[in-house]
């Protein structure tokens, strides 16, 4: 089946799968957003326990999606994997440390004799929540603004800055840094928006619901500001285009705007996504009695569409998706970074399992979330975080 497909189609297919995993990851970052709210949306120990428990039933999905995202990129675009991870060493290390400390925090937080103390594990959760969202968002922005590296003819990567990727968020002499950070902050506030919607969906507790409702609005505003700043900027900046014949990379004015207009399906998907994100928020905020439970799904699916669309305009339509601003020809495209055709075909068969995986995830999600969390359950259930 896949063997008959053109190499280029397979490369596009795999880029789309990775983009989809990235989009799902951004949606699932609601867990991280929620972790940053445990001291504001909850006021008492019991309320905090309820928040942590409702998040604790989902944190592994986010974690697993991140791992799968890494594995899928490794398998399908190994040059991206080696360049980004080996190059932006400190960015990835900080992100990874944030996930390392998260993984133990749910299980260990409320256990007696836990060595570091409950507060430390809660701070780990907050650290993870801030770092994962801001850094991952900032890293994705570099798909549009580029990084400083070059690749030699043996495909070895040489990163320009000794700060190993941190310069992309800290070098304020470059305007691109503001664009990068704006996406990082947009993802941070979006994750908090989604977390509030998730709380409204899964927790049956009046005070929590009231605070989540208020927090929804307080985070939606900065999200919109940062997201619009990012969006307007990337539509206006010069983008990293690839000449389809010579494969030469060059700067094209308004490249990403062109990509949106030249790929109408992506444009529709992207706009639909943005509208759904907003709709989920607005309906949950203004018609809370009827719509607060559904917000997570409307805004969540909207997030997936929006991020999926964004990642497609970064890599499709002859665009370098991991560009180098210091050496244009070292920029990474879906053509020069992919695995061989054979591997992409073999992996494509594996990708047929994804719908089954999604199906059992949905089934298990519903089984665990079929009843809202309430105070009584926190006292009855033998396994709580």
């Amino acid at each position, binding site marked *: 089946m896949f063997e008959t497909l053109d190499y280029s189609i397979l490369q596009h297919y795999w880029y789309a799968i990775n983009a989809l995993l990235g989009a799902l990851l951004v949606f699932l970052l609601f867990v991280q957003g929620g972790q940053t709210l445990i001291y504001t949306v909850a006021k008492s120990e019991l309320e905090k326990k309820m928040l942590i428990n409702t998040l604790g039933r989902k944190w*592994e999905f986010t974690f*697993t999606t991140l791992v799968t995202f890494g*594995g*899928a990129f490794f*398998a399908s675009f190994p040059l991206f994997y080696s360049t980004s991870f080996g190059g932006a060493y400190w960015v*990835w290390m900080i992100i990874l440390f944030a*996930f390392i400390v998260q993984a133990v925090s749910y299980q260990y937080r409320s256990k007696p004799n836990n060595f570091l103390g409950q507060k430390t594990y809660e701070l780990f959760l907050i650290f993870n929540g801030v770092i994962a969202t801001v850094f991952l968002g900032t890293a994705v922005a570099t798909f549009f603004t580029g990084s400083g590296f070059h690749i030699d003819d043996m495909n*070895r990567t040489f990163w320009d800055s000794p700060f190993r990727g941190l310069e992309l968020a800290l070098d304020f002499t470059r305007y691109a840094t503001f664009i990068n950070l704006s996406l990082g902050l947009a993802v941070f506030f979006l994750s908090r928006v989604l977390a509030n919607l998730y709380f409204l969906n899964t927790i049956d507790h009046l005070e929590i619901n009231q605070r989540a409702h208020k927090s929804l609005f307080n985070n939606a505003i900065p999200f919109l500001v940062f997201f619009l700043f990012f969006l307007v900027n990337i539509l206006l900046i010069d983008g990293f285009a690839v000449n389809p014949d010579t494969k030469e990379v060059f700067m094209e004015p308004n490249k990403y705007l062109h990509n949106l207009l030249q790929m109408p399906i992506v444009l529709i998907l992207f706009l639909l996504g943005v509208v759904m994100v907003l709709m989920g928020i607005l309906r949950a905020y203004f018609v809370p009695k009827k719509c607060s439970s559904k917000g997570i799904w409307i805004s969540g699916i909207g997030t997936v569409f929006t991020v999926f669309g964004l990642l497609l305009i970064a890599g499709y339509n002859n665009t370098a998706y991991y560009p180098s601003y210091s050496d244009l020809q070292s920029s990474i495209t879906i053509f020069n970074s992919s695995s061989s055709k054979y591997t992409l075909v073999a992996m494509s068969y594996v990708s047929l399992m994804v719908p089954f995986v999604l199906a059992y995830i949905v089934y298990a999600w519903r089984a665990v979330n079929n009843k809202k969390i309430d105070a009584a359950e926190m006292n009855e259930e033998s396994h709580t975080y």
Partner: protein
Amino acid sequence: MENFDLTLIDWSRAQFALTALYHWLFVPLTLGITFILAIMETIYYKTGDPEWKKITKFWMTLFGINFAIGVATGIILEFEFGTNWSNYSWFVGDIFGAPLAIEGIMAFFMESTFIAIMFFGWNKVSKGFHLTATWLTAIGSNLSALWILVANGWMQNPVGMQFNPDTARNEMVDFFEVLFNPAAVNKFLHTIFSSYILAAIFVVGISAWFLLKKKEILFAKRSIVVAAIFGLIFSVMTIFTGDESAREISKSQPMKFASMEGLYHGTTNAPLVAFGILKDAPTIENPEKKDFAFKVEIPGMLSYMANLKFDSFVPGIYDLVHGNVDQGIISYSEKINRGLVARNTLSEYKLALKGNDAVLIDSLRSNFENKEWMEGYFNYFGYSYFSNPHDIIPNVPITFYSFHIMVILGGYFMALFIIVLFFVMKDTLAGKRWLLWIALWTMPLGYLASESGWIIAEMGRQPWVIQDLMPTMTAVSNIDSNSVIITFWLFFAVFTALLIAEIKIMLKQIKIGPNEGGH
């Protein structure tokens, strides 16, 4: 040897070793105890006896504590290939990345989805569905191990690929050859079976403590019966797969095999050193130097292990380094020369591509399509990075002692399970306090044996990251060594703190015991 930043290489290796050894403290228990849990819950499902539910839930709590830190230490390993071994990642991503991606899609999601039901579903889903979730968690975690070990097996015995001179990397040509690579199959089975032993030791050891304290007698006895039978079955299986593994290593990694036995000079009727203390290694100047201070040998056994024939020849370290004409073994010097021919041909090909010289391109390219040339020259590509053949010998004492510690402990574990079961059958185990103390103190030995296995696998194949193709020193990322030194110590500090937390929490939960529901 060419100019490499040795500080960077050493610290990158140290960091990978540190993170992998830490991760492996938690994985074997997960692999094994999930099946033990599934068996216990199955008995509960069949009998409806609440005692079995209590037993299942107690071990499940300990599993959850272990699982969390296993996940925490595991995430870094996948990404470390990119962050610290980016030249490796690019060179083999076409093959090595696939199993990692499949692991994520097939196994990791299964594990993490059903684990949530296992922990939180007791009062939310039916008994049957909960049991299914427990089994699927066990299967998911073991499937996860399958794909990781397929990836590792490929590094030990690279198969199913072809070198593409245009991209200058190895590309996969046969997925099933990679999947059913004998090194991978043996490694997978040997690793999971030995992990089941560790889990059984864990359950028997902690249950023995309850018997020593005269607490939760029924709980402890039942746990011991399940775990000791489980452990005994897989002790036998581990011996079989270990034997297969050794044979496989003797073929694909003869240097590792010779190092495992401290065999410097090859011989027919090679004896197996059952127990030995190494002395100074023989050197080039003094090749006949005595290599063992003391040893107990089983005559001909090593030859039998390698070739199933007592009179067969097993090459020693020096046969491999200096060659052995009678046995048709090429010396490392010759392999270095052949590797250089392959590497120079690739460089010339790259230059020809740049110069657009069609005739030269075709003639050089034909080498890479010629099977004989590839086998005669390209297969030694990695040797071209060495100038001294003695740099291609692994650390013999570490490999030798790790191997012998693993094997001796493996035998001891089997004996322990038999003795424990013997007294269980006579129903006198609770009174055998000496045996209960032994069972308790065997727990750290289980971890020692398991870690030793990985030390043989990874130290024994040095200096290769991919056997014969890519030396470890060429695989590192181009980072300044200070960054790696800092991250090494950060990992050391964070993982150690988390390990202490894990042990303290676990000890507390054990003290609380099964009646409290684990909290």
